[in-house]
């Protein structure tokens, strides 16, 4: 299954209108577009550039500069493993390895073929007091062990399976 979203320009336009079609607010606009599609579809970028009267290179340049922007579709569940200093010294790497192994992912391949999971590392979630920390779908889990991380992932897989049976 490939997830090419054909862009609904009306939605993009309403985001642009919500930001007053102001080129200075490009970053906020792209954030809103990404919140809508979970990534930045190429057509949406082109549309934004045209609407704001900016060179496409400028919009593309901003989209590629910031780590938060994704040009590829992300999975339905996003696992963010903290590899900030505090988490690193308390052993975040074995957790990453365990999660990747369970999902058959690597440093290059970050999204599962069924588009269920994307696994990424981030530098510091600001939950260092709970190191090592992992955020799954916006929920922070602290003092995680590799085994617990795999259990969390499996619980989500189970839940998805049940949901698809209903």
């Amino acid at each position, binding site marked *: 299954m490939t997830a090419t979203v054909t862009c609904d320009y009306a939605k993009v336009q309403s985001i642009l209108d919500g930001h007053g079609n102001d*080129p*200075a*607010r*490009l*970053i*906020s606009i*792209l*954030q809103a577009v990404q919140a809508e599609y979970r990534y930045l579809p190429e057509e949406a970028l082109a549309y934004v550039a045209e609407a704001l009267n900016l060179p496409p290179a*400028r919009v593309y*340049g*901003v989209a590629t*500069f*910031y*780590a*938060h*922007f994704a040009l590829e579709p992300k999975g339905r569940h996003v696992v963010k493993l903290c*590899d*900030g*200093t*505090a988490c*690193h*010294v*308390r*052993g975040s790497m074995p957790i990453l390895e365990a999660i990747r192994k369970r999902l058959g992912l690597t440093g290059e391949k970050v999204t599962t073929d069924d588009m269920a999971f994307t696994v990424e590392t*981030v*530098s*510091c*979630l*600001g*939950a*260092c*007091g*709970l*190191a090592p*920390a992992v955020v799954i779908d*916006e*929920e*922070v*889990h*602290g003092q995680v062990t590799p085994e617990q991380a795999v259990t969390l992932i499996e619980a989500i897989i189970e839940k998805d399976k049940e949901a698809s049976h209903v």
Partner: protein
Amino acid sequence: MCNCATPGNRSNATAVQTVDLNQVKDAYTQAASVCSRRIVICAGTGCMANGAMKVFDAFHIALQEQGVRVLTAIDPDEPAQASEADEMVLHLSKSGCQGFCQMGPLVSIEPDGILYTLVRADDVADIVGETILKGALVDRLLYRDPQTRQVCRGPEEIAFYKRQTRQVLKMCGAIDPENIAEYISLGGYSAARRAYLMMSPETVCEEITESGLRGRGGGGFPTGHKWELTRVQPGPKKYVICNGDEGDPGAFMDRSVMEGAPHSVIEGMMIAARGIGADEGYIYVRMEYPLAVARVRRAVTDAEAAGILGDDLFGSGLNFRLHVMEGAGAFVCGEETALIASIEGKRGMPKPKPPFPAERGLWDKPTVINNVETLATVPIILREGAKALRGIGMPNSPGTKTFALTGHVANTGLIETPFGATLRQIVYEIGGGVLNDAGAPDPRGFKAVQIGGPSGGCLTPDHLDLTLDYDALRDVGAMVGSGGLVVMNQDTCMVSVARFFMQFTQNESCGKCVLCREGTRQMLALLDDIMEGTATEETLDLLKKLAIAVQKGSLCGLGKTAPSPVLSTLHYFRDEYEAHVRDKKCPAGQCKALADPEILADRCVGCTACARKCPVGAIQGYRKEAHVIDVAKCVKCGVCAETCKFDAIIGV
């Protein structure tokens, strides 16, 4: 004494009524007085992750079951009336981070001064039954000092809190961050009011200069001086920016302040705006901090609704509008010129300075940019006087500093001490000592404490009594930085720590200047060689040379400071680097490529488990006889050591 602002012409009659702070304060105090007790659930990120919201809900239910009337918000506009039928009315509220993250979820009960730790939803019935209804303590939920075994009733008896001086964090963890009236009831916005009605821009800048406040964002630049430089710039349009990007991985002080006391940051910005003559401001918050973004947004909206932010502040005729912007995940955007570019909707690339933002900042207008903690300290100075700040800390670094204490230490969390506290006080008294990899107290003490994140350096046990302030730290090749303190135990490989930071800065280099972009990449490659065992002693010299070149030749602070962790570990732990390159050994046993696995014949019982697990068949041996590893075949994956139940395999 002061040049009072002349009230401007109020052109439209429907302008928001100017807020009467005293009235809000009295109304809040009155509304809160119906409650005999207050239960505060820490809703900082740490406690939330440990289930604080479940505890909150459990309290709500349990109290209602007992017929206790619960108020979850004190609204001075619609105060709750105590009726005859209520035997007891309680205030149940959430707070920002209370700091003792390791022990969360935390529940404090006021005015009793009780702090319960590691509270689960199941514990709530006991707290309600014993403490709320009978006034007794639930011993098992009290903190027990690991050294003295003493049970502590509350913060006043807990070493972690006792040794701190909480000024900026005082409200964080006590008040309801989403209730502007409570902030006002504690004197909030009175400093801003004073600045707008009773002080001139000059006197605002003077008072901040006199306090000796230095920027908490890393550089330690005198804040009053920065404001004065901006104040004297001509032109009607100026900006104030709050830097809430907090990029140092391993730091969360600014996050906690934004989440726990967002109004103190807004008040600080209003005062800065008055000092320099700005009428517009931005709070730039890291996108990784969704709760901080939400709390700051809410605080701005509430302050506008209360008539505190917006037009005609306190009837002065002056305006201040505040915008909140979320970052998009780039460390370099913490650098002030890059942050400005980012607000302008561009790639966050730093610009050469001068011109400094004070002359040409946001949209080329004079701009003051300050760190969250700096701004949160400002109202305290105006409320308590410049001398009060000077009364604590060091002559050249007055006041307090918050630190995020993390890593291999018993009490991780958010702390605040006067400048000039020593590492010994922080790690051993507040932090409760060092932990080994298994999480047990480690009598060997720490190997290093990393301060200042990827721009900082490390401190060693030789620095235990060094006073932590801007100048003392700079002298030993480290820096206060944002305030991340990462404690590392004896089993930490310092080369790998240096590599960790190098990878971070290499990743985050914006790519604009060659030395930073290519230099960090090459340094990373050299560190990899060292860890893989392919380096020689010359590599160390080359690494050092390159580090100095990057330091000298980079445009912005990112590149200039990126080599610091390497230079500082090379300086203090040269022997560890040498062991890697000369003996091809990692003294901490962490570098996989240098592992030297061995099976201890006297421990091996010949269970064959390791031989079966080894992915490359490098382990040989008969059942019930000691096994051996063929080091030539071994890929040093470590599976055998993990498998062995008898701890017979070492060195991997």
